[in-house]
């Protein structure tokens, strides 16, 4: 049964729905150009809310992209996931109908559930009564909807899963995809999707005090900057087609890269006096990938945009790599933090950087904080060979994870 770590997991297909683009091509072009999608909120009337700038996916028409019977029974997070999955399969030249059903799995992550769908039905319940709750509420708002719908749409019957670890879920699910491949499954569609933009979903994000209240899209999300004032929430999704390396070779599909290392570490309870564990996650992922810090060509940082959390990330990077010793970028400055989708979108960017030899920039940051001594890629994209990239994610309450991708 356990075929062990001898099996390698590579990525052969990508799918993205981001505020900066529906589809990998548009997303990547805008990301390299540093074109930001952060903008004043249009999804709802912002006048009663302190959050003014968010990262919405514009012009997403699910009816143009999915069968209408699927659209009516799914929340936006699931529609993102279904669209991403389809793109990843096409990109990876995989027709699921031609593959053994138990050799294909779906492992997704999600942080907040189907927020708008849920609020609408909750309103039906309380304003009109229990009999007015829609029949699809039971299958649309909950966290398992994404893996369920994707596996059903493509007849993927292997070991599937759903992981929730705030933002970190977007890497956790890919770590699990690699585990599933090591245990003998050939293909796994894996990634995170989220959309929390309903009024109640938005209000839920206010109390931790980490969201930027700036009304200037160019100044709202500035990780590692002296003017950092919080993060901008966004929505979106990314799904990777993760495949056993020998299968990709046999199919003649060129991988973007290998999921070479993965590690997770949880922070101690606040107030215990013990330090945070991001460094251990990074070192664990490097060790797992059999990499030295010097092998890493670029880091896709978590970049919370909250001064204290930025400092902690910089300190972990300095402890592992030395001060400002590795190029760092935060392309999510163009999208906002996409919850469980964010780290998977970063993985897509990292894999594209490996493929194309160019690293996308961090936008809007103009005055890097002296407390954050990192070699931040600002302005133009940096053309450089990328053999190894590190992607970092952190989540509320102390979740940390890191993934190392390597050129194949």
């Amino acid at each position, binding site marked *: *049964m356990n075929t062990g770590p001898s099996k390698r997991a590579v990525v052969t297909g990508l799918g993205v729905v981001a505020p900066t683009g529906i589809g990998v091509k548009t997303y990547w072009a805008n990301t390299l150009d540093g074109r930001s999608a952060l903008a004043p909120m249009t999804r709802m009337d912002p006048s009663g809310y302190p959050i003014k700038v968010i990262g919405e996916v514009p012009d997403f028409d699910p009816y143009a992209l999915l069968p209408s019977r699927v659209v009516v029974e799914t929340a936006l997070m699931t529609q993102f996931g279904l669209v991403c999955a389809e793109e990843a399969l096409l990109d990876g030249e995989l027709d699921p109908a031609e593959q053994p059903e138990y050799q294909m799995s779906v492992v997704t992550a999600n942080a907040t559930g189907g927020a708008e769908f849920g609020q609408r039905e909750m309103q039906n319940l309380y304003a009109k009564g229990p009999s007015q*709750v829609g029949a699809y509420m*039971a299958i649309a708002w909950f966290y398992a909807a994404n893996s369920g719908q994707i596996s059903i749409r493509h007849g993927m019957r292997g070991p599937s899963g759903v992981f929730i*670890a705030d933002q970190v879920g977007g890497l956790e699910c890919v770590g699990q995809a690699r585990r599933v491949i090591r245990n003998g499954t050939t293909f796994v569609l894996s990634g995170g999707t989220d959309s929390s933009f309903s009024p109640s979903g938005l209000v839920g994000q206010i109390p931790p005090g980490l969201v930027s209240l700036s009304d200037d899209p160019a100044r709202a999300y500035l990780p590692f900057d002296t003017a950092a004032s919080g993060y901008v929430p966004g929505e979106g999704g990314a799904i990777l087609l993760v495949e056993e390396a020998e299968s990709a070779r046999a199919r003649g599909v060129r991988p973007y890269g290998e999921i070479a290392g993965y590690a997770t570490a949880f922070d101690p309870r606040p107030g215990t006096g013990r330090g945070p564990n991001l460094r251990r996650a990074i070192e664990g992922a490097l060790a797992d990938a059999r990499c030295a810090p010097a092998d890493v060509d670029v880091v896709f940082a978590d970049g919370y945009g909250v001064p204290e959390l930025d400092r902690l990330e910089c300190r972990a990077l300095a402890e592992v790599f030395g001060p400002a010793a590795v190029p760092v970028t935060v392309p999510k400055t163009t999208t906002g933090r996409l919850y469980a989708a964010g780290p998977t979108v970063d993985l897509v960017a990292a894999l594209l950087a490996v493929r194309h030899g160019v690293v996308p920039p961090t936008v809007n940051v103009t005055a890097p904080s002296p407390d954050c001594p990192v070699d931040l890629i600002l302005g133009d994209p940096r053309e450089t060979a990328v053999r190894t990239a590190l992607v970092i994610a952190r989540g509320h309450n102390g979740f940390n994870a890191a993934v190392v991708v390597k050129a194949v």
Partner: protein
Amino acid sequence: MTERRVAVTGIGVIAPRGIGTAAFWETLMAGRTATRRITHFDPADFRCQVAAEIDFDPLAVGLSPQEARRMDRAGQLALVAAREALADSGLTGSGLAGSALDPARVGVSLGNAIGCTELMEREYVVLSDGGRKWLVDPEYAVPHLYDVMVPSSMAAELAWSCGAEGPVALVSTGCTSGIDALGHAFELVREGSADVVLAAGTDAPVSPVTVACFDTLRAQSTANDDPEHACRPYDRNRKGLILGEGSAVMVFEELEHARRRGAHVYCEVVGYASRANGYHMTGLKPDGREMAEAIRVALDQARLNPDEIDYVNGHGSGTRQNDRHETAAFKSALGAHAYDVPVSSIKSMIGHSLGAIGAIEVAACCLAIEHDAVPPTANLETPDPECDLDYVPKVAREQRTDVVLSVGSGFGGFQSAIVLAGEGKARR
């Protein structure tokens, strides 16, 4: 390197008519049902008005006022069960922080299907002023509202309860969340990512929105005039499932680690597998094909033959669709032995607690191995001719119980199986 084996060294349960493992087992062995008319809210306007509830006072069972305030009921139930499991394991009563364990080698895998729904719903009612406002009022947001929105907060609370700083995650595969979280914990220990993992499930779905959801599906029993007998798995007169609430937490520990410290080993986890039916979000094909495949793969991993299974804890939710589906799966995966091995559903007594029940059922399986006895299926009066296996009607049985299979089936089409084995049967 020899293969790492996974022992269960601690159990904590909080279930309807079963606060604490001892009370839980007593309820099961007595065949008592905990289903009753809903008291959490006035169910008069709902199609189904019955659930299996816990009479639960968070302060009385040791939670602090702040824990009681910030945590959803599901999180509170999990924390109570975690404390019992940790004390039972001997790793220390108040958490692992003071023990010799390296926190980096301790993890949490918590199964949960519907998040912090109960508290989210209560807060929604205030924010929206009873559903009147779509643009809800931010000034009524409580300080812990984000934690209510992201259920990973519950996994964090469990990690804090035991000082875990290793792999921590919430597994949310709908009704198989509990069993899948245990499967994940099993893999974490087996592969060496952790030495000790709190393997758990929790859910508290007895609130208006969830009862309304199941009403719309017509999945719930409507035996409102006879709550005690409302859930009747495998019975011809079944009417549907009954929601329950609860949590079970188990300490999964690397076997040598457990032996070195002289811990009591309830049993070993020896196999786990999950498959998706790729068919329908709520519908099941009657052939039970994917569940059968999950059972076969889990047994294969355990290196056990079907005829070595002494007891099957069925999914037994109380719907005709499920009963046919899993009966076919057992016949397909276990062959002739399906007719010999006792199968029972504890949901008949404590209801279907969604993401919790898979973990609660495995806790029952550990206790079945410990006590050499199997729980009955309550309310099984008139067997459905389509269900022609031995479903242990109404009365528990004392019998040699070494190898146990537990299965789960749920929304999204997920089908999971886990195999436990007592001493002697694990890895001959």
